[in-house]
């Protein structure tokens, strides 16, 4: 990984917020079906979000930022999966109690203290991802723990909440959301900041995932679980890397963020050294320099280039397009020369931090978003153009320059945002939510929300959680993953198989088979290896009800000979999953020796002789056994067949 760092020395700490969709037929606050995704729509709604004033009469930082973006928000509706609740035209119905139950199960898995009365809160999101402008969410349990690498990770809380929209596009001032996922129930499991290396973060994501899966009541598949990773280093601040889709991304992301924070802290020292100590000391002014670039080889800085971009992207006034005429605006950053090329994440510089803010807040998203004096593009005449800009801004040698372009109003917002980002830099690491990319880099998404944007949902009454309810759920709670893993490990079941069983729900089947009398090791291998093998071979084993396999193991214990024909039985069961197993076995003629089976072996022996095979005694026996078992597997134990064949072969084939 690029950049090296001693995590302990840097004081890296990380925590997780793992979001897991629940397997309920309906959504959380309305009666729409959950999990029904659509890629088309039959209606559209256009909305805007306004921040509401906080308790102290201030606007929440995030809320204000999102208001500044002046986003037009479009929701795509499909009548199959949304009703008037999701589009915020009907108040919530009573909370889905099945979802609360699953959240309680998760709490019990983690040893949480379950709250006595669940209160629904609203958590504001003004990015449009939820049409109400807030997510309904509630704490169900607190104070849990997770055994991890011989120590304990604290579980701060488990909450139940509604899922948000899926983003379709985000261009300029228009963001489009699909609403199918909106309102589906999720649980969020929050750990303390107890993880100390990127590797631990990855491992903990997988472990929390296995806890969720262990309830047997969660969704699987793409997007069914997403995690936010909170990272900080000593002296830095909590940064939330939002919506990490895969555990395997976590290592590079956490590493990159640790490096970024360490570098931002160094930048802070440098800024202080230069005398930048507060907001007032950061001076950024700007000028319209459109005229300087009318003939520039950088065509995106010309009016014609901009018009082509707008036409090509089909950007419409009042939707994607911001206000005002096209403008190239140059900002002078007084005394900040050298800071734009300051390293941040591996391979990236502080200019990238500015670009992220400008893209999100000013809505200027035409690549490369900005140009700056420390890495101006290389073309003939570039130096002259840059000099003209510096001259126009009356730049001194210590000043840096950033150039942005687009609708005039947006360029002004961009310049204001550049200044704000530098003010943040004086403080070190700003609290941010960052968007992850597969290469391990992140980009600005929004200012991290504070507790001020949480307030009670006046539309929903609290839910009392009685002890009886909790005990009822505890009584049928599946085993915890670490208990299962330890038990299976002792039985010799490989760790990967154990994890597979827990992740894919096979663990529940194993326990059902054991309850029906199966040997746990056999059951574990059957579900974790054999069924997996058949599935890979295309046998639709997932369509087979669990009771069928339970029946199979019951037959195995009554007639152990059947075990030898497990593959044939399983394949046939996959073909006719709804038939009772007895009928399947009877049709296959399995379980009992056919009449005169011993006599038939004489023919086998004779046939084995005529093949002209290499006739050494061992090989001949194996060959004959193979032939015989084709018709006798699952009817006569192989060892009985072998015993007779041995006798027959020695009697007839002494000469061999």
């Amino acid at each position: 990984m690029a950049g090296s760092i001693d995590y302990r020395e840097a004081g890296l700490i990380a925590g997780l917020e793992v979001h897991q969709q629940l397997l309920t037929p309906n959504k959380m606050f309305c009666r729409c079906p959950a999990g029904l995704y659509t890629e088309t729509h039959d209606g559209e709604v256009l909305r805007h979000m306004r921040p509401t004033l906080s308790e102290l009469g201030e606007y929440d930082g995030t809320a204000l930022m999102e208001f500044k973006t002046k986003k037009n928000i479009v929701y795509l509706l499909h009548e199959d999966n949304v009703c008037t609740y999701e589009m915020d035209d009907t108040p919530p119905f009573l909370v889905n109690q099945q979802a609360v139950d699953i959240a309680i199960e998760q709490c019990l898995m983690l040893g949480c203290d379950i709250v006595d009365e669940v209160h629904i809160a609203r958590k504001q999101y003004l990015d449009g991802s939820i049409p109400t402008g807030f997510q309904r969410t509630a704490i169900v349990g607190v104070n849990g723990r997770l055994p991890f690498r011989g120590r304990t990770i604290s579980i701060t809380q488990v909450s139940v909440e509604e899922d948000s929209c899926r983003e379709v596009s985000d261009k300029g001032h228009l963001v489009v959301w699909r609403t199918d996922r909106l309102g589906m129930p999720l649980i969020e499991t929050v750990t303390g900041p107890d993880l100390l290396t990127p590797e631990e973060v990855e491992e903990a994501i997988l472990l929390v995932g296995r806890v969720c899966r262990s309830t047997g009541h969660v969704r699987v598949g793409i997007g069914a679980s997403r995690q936010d990773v909170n990272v900080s280093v000593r002296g830095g601040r909590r940064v939330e890397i939002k919506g990490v889709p895969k555990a395997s991304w976590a290592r590079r992301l956490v590493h990159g963020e640790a490096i970024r924070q360490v570098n931002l802290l160094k930048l802070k020292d440098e800024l202080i050294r230069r005398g930048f100590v507060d907001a007032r000391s950061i001076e950024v002014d700007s000028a319209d320099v459109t005229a300087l670039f009318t003939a520039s080889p950088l065509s995106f800085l010309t009016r014609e280039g901009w018009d082509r971009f707008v036409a090509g992207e089909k950007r419409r006034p009042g939707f994607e397009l911001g206000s005002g005429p096209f403008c190239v605006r140059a900002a002078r950053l007084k005394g900040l020369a050298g800071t734009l090329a300051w390293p941040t994440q591996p391979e990236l510089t502080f200019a990238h931090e500015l670009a992220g803010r400008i893209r999100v807040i000013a809505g200027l998203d035409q690549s490369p978003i900005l140009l700056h004096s420390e890495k101006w593009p290389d073309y003939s005449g570039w130096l002259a153009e840059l000099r003209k800009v510096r001259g126009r801004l009356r730049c001194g040698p210590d000043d840096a320059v950033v150039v942005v372009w687009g609708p005039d109003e947006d360029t002004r917002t961009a310049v204001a945002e550049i200044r704000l980002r530098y003010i943040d830099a004086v403080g070190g690491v700003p609290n941010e939510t960052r968007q992850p990319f597969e290469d391990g880099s992140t980009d600005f998404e929004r200012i991290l929300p504070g507790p001020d944007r949480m307030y009670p949902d006046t539309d929903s009454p609290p839910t009392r959680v009685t002890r009886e309810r909790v005990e009822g759920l505890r009584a049928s709670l599946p085993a915890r993953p670490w208990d299962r893993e330890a038990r299976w490990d002792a039985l010799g079941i490989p760790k990967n198989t154990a994890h597979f069983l827990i992740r894919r729900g096979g663990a529940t089947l194993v326990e059902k088979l054991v309850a029906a009398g199966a040997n746990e090791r056999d059951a574990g291998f059957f579900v974790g290896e054999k069924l997996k093998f058949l599935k890979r071979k295309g046998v639709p084993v997932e369509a087979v009800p669990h009771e069928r396999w339970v029946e199979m193991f019951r037959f195995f214990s009554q007639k152990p000979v059947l075990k030898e024909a497990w593959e044939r039985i399983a394949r046939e069961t996959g073909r006719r999953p709804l038939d009772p197993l007895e009928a399947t076995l009877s049709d296959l003629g399995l379980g009992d020796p056919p009449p005169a089976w011993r006599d038939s072996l004489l023919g086998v022996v004779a046939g084995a002789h005529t093949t002209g095979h290499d006739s050494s005694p061992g090989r001949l026996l194996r060959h004959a056994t193979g032939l015989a078992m084709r018709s006798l597997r699952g009817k006569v134990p192989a060892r009985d067949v072998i015993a007779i064949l041995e006798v027959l072969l020695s009697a007839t084939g002494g000469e061999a």
Partner: protein
Amino acid sequence: MSTVDPLKGYKGLARETLARLGVRVWSEVELTNDAGSVFTGVILPRSETFDDLHVVLKLKNGYNVGVHASRITGVVETGYKEAVYKIPEKDFPARPNLPKVTLLGTGGTIASRLDYRTGAVIPAFSPGELYGAVPELADICNLTTKKIFGVFSENMAMENYVVLARAIGDEIEAGADGIVIGHGTDTMGHTAAILSFMVQDTPVPIVLVGSQRSSDRPSSDAALNLIHSVRAAAYCDIAEVMICMFGPTSDRYGLLHRGTRCRKMHSSYRSTFRTIGDIPIAMVGRDGFTYLSRDFRKRDRSRKVQVDAVYDDRTTILYYYPGMRPDLVDALVEKGYRGIVIAGTGLGHINKPLYPAIKRAVEAGVHVVMTVQTLWGFAQMYVYDTGRDLLDIGIVPLENMLPETALMKLSWVLAHTDDRNEVMRMMRTPVSHEITAREPHNGYLIMQGGLPETQEWIRGHWK
């Protein structure tokens, strides 16, 4: 503040427990339960409607939880911070060249700020507060605000209408270029109807406005409705009593509905108000007005407003249903009701067993009028024999007047006269389009979802 209950909303076990532990609402606490969990937060007031077993805490992370009182093993009070709410005020900028608009408050929360701890909504109302919440208003007009009363819309009653009508008259005479009335949406239609009778010949627009999503929500329609209504009051050319609310549910434009022809048609949609049996007068958007109708009274400062704010509330609506028993009508007469609006079926029908009771009512001097519960269409009682029988009994059909409008008008009329002929003359003579001569074919449009052509239309337009 000394009379404020320090354990607000707490009853029974929860109250006893808090009292015993010596903490109160707004105490900052570290509360421990029998499982050893420590909850750090603030004790919140509890809703009176919740049970008496739980203590509500707002945790540091902003979430609320309820802890069963019997499970509390210890509380340490670390502080006390009573929430003092002050809505930030910014001076509403005075711009002499802009029109003067007066906003009258009746209690609906058009703009408000949230009490983040309890979730209670604190109304923003003064121009300074409104400017803080909806700064766009300052670009439209010079705003004056007056709080007339603070009641929920469902608690508005006749005496409130009188006060409101007089206040409107006073403001107009004092030179307002337009009036906006902040009102809860539930009975906004009723208020708009009766104001249409109580305040006549207005020289300027009178615009009622509210919101379907309270203004503490980021997605609220309140700010946009307020902007639209203030713009309409300041600039539009329609000098009538109107309702200004969302056209579609999208943030697109508002509609100006005539006060006597408008009805709330959905319990929660933003676009809940619809003009019934006619078309809205105008659209109001970011770029001004689109007049849909030419048939309205124009703004004219020289006209003198007539306030005639009287009422008799011994009136009611009988919403007819099959099998309605005649003793209901007798009971109304017995209780002294003077006017009955029937919302009849179809063209204006009720069942035969009611006839004698109605006849007794009419003979007792009660004024009985007929409207239709279909809302759209006319009471046309000449079509069937049953209708003609009802006319003979003395029921007077009110054409296409909406039932609620008819009730409001009857209350107003009965304060002027008890003479049967005069009552019926006044009822049947439209003051402000409450009866229209013609129903345009696009005055009745309820698109049926699912039809291919409707789906096609929905796909191509903002909902």
